[in-house]
């Protein structure tokens, strides 16, 4: 008996409880470790057979024996490059703004902290939601630039001739010496191919006609009937037949593209289910994570350093640029690498953006279709044949190795670049 507050606790009971709690914790940790080890063991035993050089250098195939991971691996590389190139500068800039440039005025401050709070919430949003956002914003671009599906548009040839003029139209006939183009106003034109200096293919989004009766018509397709009349599918999905003589003016708007689909800088709007759209969607997924990690890293820089730099007459930007960012770089890099490794493992948003394509090529430009490691694994795992399940296990092993490499890199950076700040 001790003190005024009644019975003392039995030391034996306390020691027993202490030990019981320890055992509880250890067993919970042990169970999760065991499950993890078992999963990895299962993957290795299933996947290691396929895991060879051929697996990494061949494209997917209908036959499991010759199927490989190449397009998925390179698709992931492209996606991560796009994603990191956009997410890192944006995320670091946003974190610097939120952490270092808190506004003074009350209303602005409220908005500032509201934004900060919401970014924390965004980090918890399921990634499929970002997939839907990516689909609307990047793939379809709100329908502002027409459909991402080019095959629904008329495809025209456009040539530049030696005398400096252009000609455009549907390609009717092509031979070594000449090509025949059909244009709603010019009619059918035959061009000697020797006169052509450059040639490219364009997609027509909308044909706009004004008739001598004053009537205006517009629609996505135009063609010619066997009698030589124009045939327009209008925006209202009607088919109107027009005598070419009635057409007063004709204009078309094309799908916005830069470069040829085979060139490395090919670009078009809307982005469609392209590598660029996929990478930007992954960027949405990891941006909040990057911002939060960077804010933590910036917060870890002691304010005495900021004050010291301000007291020397540094502006806020100089202070951030020369003092705060260099001091926070190890933390920022660690956070960014972990965020990017999250992007590598994401499947859901890519599924929404790009669909579950079987891609037999490595992307050549930002507009190409893509596959990705998690998508290919998902594809294989969903097939009925046992052989493909083993392929999926091999893919998982590759993915895990990449992720472990990224995490190791993060640890190395944290250890090597970490320096005391005070």
């Amino acid at each position, binding site marked *: 008996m001790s003190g005024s507050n009644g019975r003392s606790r039995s030391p034996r009971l306390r020691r027993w409880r202490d030990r019981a709690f320890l055992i509880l914790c250890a067993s919970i940790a042990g169970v999760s470790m065991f499950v993890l080890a078992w999963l990895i063991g299962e993957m290795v035993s299933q996947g290691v057979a396929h895991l060879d050089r051929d697996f990494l250098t061949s494209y997917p195939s209908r036959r499991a024996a010759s199927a490989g991971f190449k397009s998925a691996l390179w698709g992931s590389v492209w996606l991560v490059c796009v994603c990191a190139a956009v997410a890192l500068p944006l995320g670091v800039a946003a974190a610097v703004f939120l952490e270092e440039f808190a506004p003074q005025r009350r209303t602005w401050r409220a908005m500032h902290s509201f934004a900060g709070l919401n970014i924390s919430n965004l980090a918890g949003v399921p990634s499929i939601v970002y997939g839907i956002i990516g689909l609307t914003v990047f793939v379809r671009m709100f329908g502002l630039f027409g459909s991402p599906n080019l095959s629904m548009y008329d495809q025209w040839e456009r040539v530049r001739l030696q005398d400096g003029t252009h000609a455009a139209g549907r390609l009717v006939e092509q031979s070594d010496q000449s090509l025949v183009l059909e244009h709603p106003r010019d009619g059918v034109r035959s061009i000697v191919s020797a006169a052509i200096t450059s040639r490219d293919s364009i997609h027509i989004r909308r044909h706009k006609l004004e008739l001598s009766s004053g009537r205006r018509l517009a629609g996505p397709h135009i063609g010619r009937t066997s009698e030589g009349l124009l045939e327009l599918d209008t925006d209202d999905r009607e088919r109107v037949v027009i005598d070419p003589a009635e057409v007063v003016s004709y204009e078309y708007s094309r799908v916005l593209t830069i470069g040829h689909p085979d060139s490395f800088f090919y670009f078009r709007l809307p982005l469609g289910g392209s590598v660029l759209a996929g990478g930007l969607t992954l960027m949405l997924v990891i941006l909040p994570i990057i911002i939060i990690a960077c804010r933590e890293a910036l917060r870890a820089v*002691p304010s005495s350093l*900021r*004050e*010291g730099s*301000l*007291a020397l007459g540094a502006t806020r930007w100089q202070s951030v640029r020369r003092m705060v960012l260099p001091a926070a770089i190890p933390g920022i890099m660690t956070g960014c690498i972990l965020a990017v490794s999250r992007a590598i493992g994401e499947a859901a948003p890519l599924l929404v953006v790009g669909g579950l394509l079987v891609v037999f090529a490595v992307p050549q430009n930002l507009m190409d279709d893509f596959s990705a490691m998690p998508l290919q694994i998902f594809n294989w795992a969903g097939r009925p044949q046992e052989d493909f399940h083993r392929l999926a296990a091999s893919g998982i092993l590759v993915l895990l190795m990449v992720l472990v490499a990224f995490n190791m890199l993060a640890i190395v950076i944290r250890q090597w670049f970490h*320096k*005391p700040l005070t």
Partner: protein
Amino acid sequence: MIHAPTQTALANEGTPVSRTGQLGHAARHALEQRGTEGPTGVALIAAGLSAWYGQHQALADVGLEVPERRVTALIGPSGCGKSTFLRWVNRMNDVVRTARASGRLELFGEDVLAPSVDAVDLRRRVGMVFQKPNPFPKSIFDNVAFGPRLHLRLRRGALADLVEMSLRQAALWDEVKDRLHASALGLSGGQQQRLCIARAIAVGPQVLLMDEPCSALDPQATLRIEDLIRDLRRQFTIIIVTHNMQQAARVSDTVAFFYEGRLIESGQTVQVFTKPSSARTEDYITGRFG
């Protein structure tokens, strides 16, 4: 470490030793030495200066003149507004959201509280040394070069000269000249604080603010900083906040005693320490409270 008093200072008219008895021998000598110099111009005038942090009033109607190229010590118990005063002189309080001030604070005739004054430009003219040494996690050289690089485009040689000069002025050159590119964090506390002083000097300020620069240092390092302060007063107007009465007596030419946000008394250090006009000042100086 304390300079021996000169003959003229010793021969100076008799200061009542009884009052300064608690200050110790060295401090007393230093005190007596001080009264011999003529007046200088005025660097800083505070008139009706009040300051708040949110609802809390930290300074109330402070009027103070700080002489040019002299050391002015701000003394008083914790929370009396000394540091607040200091942080308004270079507008460091701009960083504190809730801080505001009214009244006038004229630095060489210019009101630093005016909204038209660019705080960034002001801080270039008013250097500051903090309580805890805060060297940047960079090399010694880069620490001193940090300020000049913000404001000037110097050629390499000119920058190196400026760094050397600043380190010499801060009495640190001989200790660090062989390891300029080693991390500043490897220096001892006292060296770090002298590095911070060198860093502040390198920008070429007119005024140096020191917020308890020795409170985190051992006595040996403190004495070195005090020597340095006495050397620097030839070039800079120095305002130092200190809790250490002996330090105030040792280094300062004028003293301002703050109590609960008000300026109770200010004047020549000799005057304030030997014949304080306020009973409260006397109580504080002699250690009866605070």
